[in-house]
């Protein structure tokens, strides 16, 4: 099939939110992703625009622990790690950042939210849902329960808490929302227990080289937050995050059983058996809590003008129809 030549290619880079919004409303740009709390207002401002809901992303957000002095730090004990997970109110956190209740009140379908196990919910075939107790008894560690967390801390000898230095990227390249998410999480950890969080925000380079991408994780008394980008096949994610030989991206504790399960699923040719092995891996990792599954993943909304055709069909070329205002402007 013969296709016309491209007349022009316009890709405006608009760094300011107000400008992005104005250009979309005026019909100069095709797509706009508003802040979650402004979706209803934008819908009112631009009634002619179409609203799309995204799929759940394939990222995995974790809080992981330093390995230095691991024999003496409080989180050498899995019960402490379980307690830290139970102090994180995933439901409240999710509502804060998705604004879901307001959206439903405004007549939109609810935001879809999935809680991470130690596998990204974006890998829907393999992922087990902690909210449906698919992780067995260990699903309870995903539920917000400060009373139970305190009992666990008491049982481990940390009744009076401990200081937990928590590091996050202090550069501004992760955006303001990341900083807010970290602050809220750390606040949750301190609420209702005697754990004292000592927040530290090194510059991006130090963060990246010494903590995020540190093969030995040779730091003490720290926990970190960020995401791992998820690759096309789950094997790469499982290996890079949980296998002890993966190098800089390893976020777990050295555990022969974990390594073995990852290698087993790698060699398994039967899809059902492979799924079953990965389920076993998640059920094994759940009580171990080598890293804390962080924020629940959610779908979000974005707007597009109806004159952008073929929109939302991956793999098909989008095109601008003749009724686009300022088509030649």
């Amino acid at each position: 099939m013969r296709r016309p030549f491209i007349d022009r290619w316009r890709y405006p880079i608009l760094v300011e939110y107000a400008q992005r919004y104005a250009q979309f409303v005026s019909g100069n740009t095709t797509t706009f992703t508003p802040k979650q709390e402004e979706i209803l207002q934008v819908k009112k401002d631009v009634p002619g625009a179409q609203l799309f809901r995204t799929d759940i992303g394939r990222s995995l957000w974790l809080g992981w622990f330093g390995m230095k002095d691991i024999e003496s730090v409080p989180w050498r004990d899995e019960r402490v790690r379980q307690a830290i997970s139970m102090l994180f109110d995933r439901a409240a956190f999710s509502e804060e950042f998705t604004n879901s209740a307001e959206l439903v009140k405004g007549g939109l379908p609810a935001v879809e939210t999935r809680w991470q196990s130690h596998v990204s919910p974006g890998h829907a075939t393999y992922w087990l849902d902690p909210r449906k107790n698919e992780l067995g008894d260990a699903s309870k560690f995903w539920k917000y329960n400060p009373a139970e967390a305190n009992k666990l801390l008491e049982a481990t000898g940390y009744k009076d808490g401990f200081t937990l230095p928590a590091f996050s990227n202090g550069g501004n390249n992760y955006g303001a929302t990341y900083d807010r998410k970290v602050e809220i999480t750390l606040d949750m950890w301190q609420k209702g227990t005697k754990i004292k969080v000592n927040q530290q925000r090194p510059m991006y380079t130090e963060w990246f080289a010494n903590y995020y991408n540190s093969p030995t994780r040779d730091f003490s008394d720290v926990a970190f937050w960020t995401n791992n980008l998820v690759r096309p096949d789950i094997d790469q994610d499982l290996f890079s995050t949980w296998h002890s030989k993966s190098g800089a991206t390893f976020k777990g504790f050295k555990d022969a059983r974990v390594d073995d399960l990852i290698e087993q699923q790698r060699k398994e040719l039967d899809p059902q058996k492979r799924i079953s092995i990965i389920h076993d891996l998640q059920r094994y990792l759940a009580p171990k809590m080598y890293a804390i599954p962080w924020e629940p993943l959610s779908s979000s909304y974005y707007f597009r003008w109806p004159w952008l055709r073929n929109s939302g069909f991956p793999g098909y070329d989008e095109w601008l129809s003749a009724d686009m205002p300022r088509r030649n402007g």
Partner: protein
Amino acid sequence: MAVYAMRRILLVVPTLFALSVLLFVVIRVLPPDDAIELQLDERARGDAQVKASLMQYFGLHQPLWRQYTDWAGGLLRGDLGISLNSRRPIRDELASRIPVSFELSLIGLFVTWVVSFPLGVLSAVYQDRLPDYLLCTSAYLLDAIPSFVIATLVITYLAVYFTWAPPVKFTYLWDDPIGYLKIMLLPILIIGIGAAGNLVRFTRTFLLEVLRQDYVRSARAKGLSERTVLRRHALRNLALPFVTVIGATIPTLLTSSVIIERLFNLPGMGRYLVTAVSQLDYPVIQSTTMLFAVLILTSQLITDLSYTWLDPRVSYK
């Protein structure tokens, strides 16, 4: 006058030197490793060899005093250095940006003058009456609200109520005057009117002071009309303080342009500087800030020297 001018110009030299040292030291508080690391592709991050070769390429491996003399020497020769991010000479990158910022600030200054002078006079003439109250309140409001807030509101409301937004693609005045006007009109008005609040109040205060002078009373006693008194006797004497204040407004306009350029997506020096800050692009931050400093010092020098031209009674001994 010539001696004063010479002395005044010579005073700029140590000021610029002190400023360059201060600027250099303050920026170098951030470790150069961070700056280099930020420029690297994710895959190259953490690679000590790549980092070391880049440090060497940009001269960041040398002792601080050497880096300073290289940079300052380059500035004197018109060489502003090389951007860490784009690896291009900063002078070339600024060449197309300087006119944008210049036009924004200078035309903005003109708008400030055109708006504030007549309104300030009007406010003084109608002292303690409704127009005065309205103008003073508006002036206080303009003074209190930062220009970026006004700009954000204007951009948003124009889009919502008139489905209009300034064009995204920048065009230069000589390429497309109408397109240029569409892009630049709003930022110029916002920057100009935003700075006018302060000047309206100053003009009003100065004029009220002048109107209380003996020579104005004499002019009125001679039977001259109020309009003639104002035009011939009062306004002329307003020129000197007005120029002083408008000279002091130039730095405000230049610094406001940094934010306004970003908000309106204008490819000027301000946006270049803000982008460089987020990328820790040392040479660009240093050289562009230095250029801003030179512009501000030059504008103040011109303001000072214009006193004698405006008021022959002023002499410098």
